């Protein structure tokens, strides 16, 4: 039996379906790199390396999901000495 919720707007258009996923913010923060600090691993309880999560991060920064943490790694030639902002989304 289908479970969940369907929503329609005032015009009767389906706006939320039983098979959808929705994005939820589970953590956010900021990080800075330097010439000698290229990467940071940040604890985010509950995160796993799967399609269930993603990281939106500013700058030329690569984000990798671990189990219970994320690792942010900057490109060597970019994003030095700038504050970068990250948000973990569960979907």
């Amino acid at each position, binding site marked *: 039996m289908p479970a969940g*919720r369907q929503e329609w707007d005032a015009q009767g258009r389906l706006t*939320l379906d039983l098979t959808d996923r929705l994005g939820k*913010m589970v953590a956010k923060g900021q990080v800075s790199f330097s010439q000698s600090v*290229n990467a940071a691993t940040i604890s985010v309880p509950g995160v796993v390396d799967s399609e269930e999560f993603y990281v*939106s991060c500013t700058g030329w920064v690569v984000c990798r999901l671990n189990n219970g943490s994320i690792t942010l790694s900057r490109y*060597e030639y970019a994003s030095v000495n700038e504050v970068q*902002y990250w948000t973990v989304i569960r979907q």
Partner: protein
Amino acid sequence: MSNVGVQLFNEHGIELLNTNDPMLIVMDHRLDVVFGSGYGSILLPYSGWPESPTILIRPRPGAWYGYFMIQREGSNVRVWLDSRLIGVSPITPFDIAIACTPRASGLQPSQGYGLETFGPTGELLFSSAFRFPRIRQIAQVPGPNLQAAGSTTSAAITYGADVMPWVIARDATQSVAFSGGAASIPSAVGFYFSVNAARTAISVRADDTTNNSNNQYWGRFLRFPLCIIQGI
């Protein structure tokens, strides 16, 4: 998760929403954005920092987009994107949307019906009066082989897309070596994505070659949430 509140699940048992985590809603959008030189940027008002927003791109059929990156500029977000792939697809328009939590958006729901959820402190977490990205599928595209020019990988779009999806395109960025932190890259290589006209596949390729030791997706996936945004 607090032990008081509501959780809703979709028919696959995946949580749709709860009363603890703020949800993504669509704060703003622009249609038919064109960068005259292909690679360019657009500045969108956004005051929700330090929350980093989610950017969605709605591509044109068969066109390629890559080198995605966002930056904070005061109370704005600057989105960089290459909207052409030299020798493969010309400069092509696209649509862009910015999604974030209700608090970061500063928006207030206007209609008096639908679904609203609030957190333990009374913070609005979600309202169906907002536009929001309905994620219909998370396409997982294998990382292309950057040692082979034009190597293209694809994933099927299986949800029956009757309109072009909005794509959370953050994975279509530059190549970089991941293990051991940042690495020297002789020249930047960009990852590009494309959705075919029939909306049955999303593909990935790069604009140049490099060693796969500089390929953060080698043996992994680029993940593209494919979304519907009602009304746009």
